[in-house]
């Protein structure tokens, strides 16, 4: 049995809406009320301007585990982190933290714009809990990780937001806490840096540190976290293996608010699986199976079922349908359901992709129902490629083919330029 690093028991947190006190006219009665009434009003009832940011949240994180927290904006993710780090206290409920916890709630929080990168590394390092000697020892490593050697003596107010974030993450990545809490760090920074961050977090995880990772980047969560907590409106919706929780989260997004009443045909289910039953993470080049189920409310004919794939920016990269694949159109009676299974080969570059489905009638160009995104998959690859497709590159040869001295090469270029 592994030891507990963090435990929350029925944690509630109440916040106030609106301004604290709008005017003196509000303040005096409220102070008077607080003085006389507050005694008998418990902590578990809400005042008129209050709301629950967290309601009955309980979970446990073991030592050395990587734990993800996902949920829509305003679900209470950051509130949990603030409770964990001790910045706020829960209204009711208890919270245990075992070990030195470093929270990275915002990257570069505590940077001062007027100070240089160098000064900020020391300041931020100490703020985050390192000692001066520790920072001095790791200074070169931090600077190298950030890739900002040139600008280290420039005030950070002159930095771009990406540079700012890189420096912030570089400092934080060199902390040596028992528990590392990270909130939305991958939202900034370019592709290369994001990948370095994930690699670094993986490395940190291998040293036995407990990581709590909050992100909207589901791919990163899926890659990094063993277990995940899904929050919605301050309540725990699901906690368990990352794969399942992400699936719940994705379904919630598309199915939750669908209006089915006025549709003649609806897509009732879209599911993806590989040959061995895996359903979220796939290897590039792998064959996957996509099942689409449709149900008709009234009799409809001439239908075909389309499969759509978009990249993470919801840009369509693939689209086909049963009719275009030379299958006859289908005809559904009222109340009848059909199922279509596609096999596709994932010749995709590593990344996040969304699958969707549509029911379409070509001869009258009528779209009956579209469900996109219906499922999200992550494709990984051993080779490092960018873009959306995997063209299976191979370097056939790579060698020098001769040398020009600088004079001749200039001569070669000049006539071309002057010709324009």
């Amino acid at each position, binding site marked *: 049995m592994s030891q507990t690093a963090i435990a929350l028991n029925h944690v509630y947190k109440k916040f106030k809406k609106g301004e604290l006190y709008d005017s003196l006219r509000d303040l005096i009665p409220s102070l008077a009320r607080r003085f006389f009434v507050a005694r008998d009003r418990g902590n578990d009832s809400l005042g008129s301007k209050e709301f629950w940011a967290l309601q009955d949240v309980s979970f446990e994180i073991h030592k050395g585990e990587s734990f993800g927290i996902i949920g829509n904006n305003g679900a209470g993710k950051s509130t949990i982190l603030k409770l964990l780090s001790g910045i706020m206290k829960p209204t009711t409920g208890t919270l245990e933290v075992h070990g030195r916890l470093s929270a990275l709630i915002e990257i570069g929080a505590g940077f001062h714009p007027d100070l240089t990168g160098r000064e900020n590394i020391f*300041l931020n390092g*100490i*703020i985050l809990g390192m000692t001066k000697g520790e920072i001095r020892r790791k200074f070169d490593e931090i600077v190298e990780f950030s890739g900002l050697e040139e600008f280290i003596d420039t005030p950070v107010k002159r930095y771009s937001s990406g540079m700012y974030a890189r420096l912030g993450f570089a400092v934080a990545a060199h902390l040596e806490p028992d528990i590392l809490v990270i909130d939305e760090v991958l939202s900034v920074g370019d592709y290369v840096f994001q990948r370095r961050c994930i690699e670094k977090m993986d490395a940190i995880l291998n040293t036995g540190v407990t990581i709590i990772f909050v992100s909207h980047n589901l791919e990163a969560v899926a890659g990094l976290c063993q277990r995940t907590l899904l929050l919605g409106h301050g309540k725990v919706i699901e906690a368990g293996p990352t794969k399942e929780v992400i699936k719940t989260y994705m379904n919630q997004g598309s199915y939750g608010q669908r209006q089915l009443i006025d549709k003649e045909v609806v897509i009732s289910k879209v599911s993806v699986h590989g040959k061995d039953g895996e359903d979220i993470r796939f290897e590039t080049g792998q064959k996957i199976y996509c099942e689409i189920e449709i149900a008709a409310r009234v009799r409809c004919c001439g239908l075909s079922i389309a499969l759509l794939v978009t990249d993470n920016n919801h840009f369509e990269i693939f689209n086909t349908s049963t009719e275009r694949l030379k299958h006859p159109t289908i005809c559904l009676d009222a109340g009848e359901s059909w199922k279509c299974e596609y096999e596709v080969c994932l010749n995709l570059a590593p990344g996040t992709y969304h699958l969707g489905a549509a029911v379409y009638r070509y001869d009258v160009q009528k779209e009956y129902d579209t469900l996109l995104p219906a499922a999200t998959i992550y494709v990984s690859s051993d080779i490092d490629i960018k873009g959306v497709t995997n063209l299976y590159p191979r370097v056939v040869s790579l060698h020098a083919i001769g040398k020009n001295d600088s004079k001749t090469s200039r001569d070669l270029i000049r006539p071309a330029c002057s010709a324009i």
Partner: protein
Amino acid sequence: MIKEIRELLGYRELIYAITWKDIKIKYKQSIMGVMWAIFMPALVVSAGALVKYAFARLSGTPLGLSQIATVSVKAIPWSFFISSLRFGTNCLTANVNLVTKIYFPNEVFPISAVLSQLFDLGIASFVLCVLLAVAGIGWSIYLLWVPVLMGLLIFLAVASVLLLSAANLFFRDVKYIVEVIVTFAIFFTPVFYEADFMGATWKPIILLNPVAPILEGFNACIVLRQMPEMAWIAYSATVTIVLFFASFRFFKKMEPSFAENI
């Protein structure tokens, strides 16, 4: 209380780092830089000298160097105290980012705020020492009182700033009140004049301000070369200690709600 102070001691390096940050930022991107630390008190001292000159004209006595020394010896600790209050009142609200995003004992901010003002005081004091030496104010055994009085003044500043910064976090009115008080307090505090001037009835009232006996004490032990008035120093010390414990309790009690009320 003891547990909290022990926790605070563990954050020594942080206090040191934030103090340095405050000092550095104060003089970043300014041409005069650290010279401001001499310039500002010099202005206060000249104002005091002018007031003294007016007094001298009025009473028909010549303006002595020792009177200028008296003003300087009081005005410099006074401007330290005032700037600590000004700067310290805003120390929590100025660091919203840290208060709401990273956990550590928040009393680090008020303490650092006062310590950073100490840097200016140090520079000004150095200049003052040179001036006093030129003015012929020599050594005496009573100079041993200076560190005691200084300690008391710093302690009083920390105590006040703990209270004011926490109060300001909830109600921004506090900073305006502080601003007004700080501007006019010089009239109610014996900086440009001596408490003795006020006569037997008014002197105790003037000295009720806990800063006043400390300033009078500086004058006594540096310029007049005599013992400070012990009864009044004891009074200041008592007020300081009581205020410190009360402020600290208040600060720690409110601290968990800082992040959501800032």
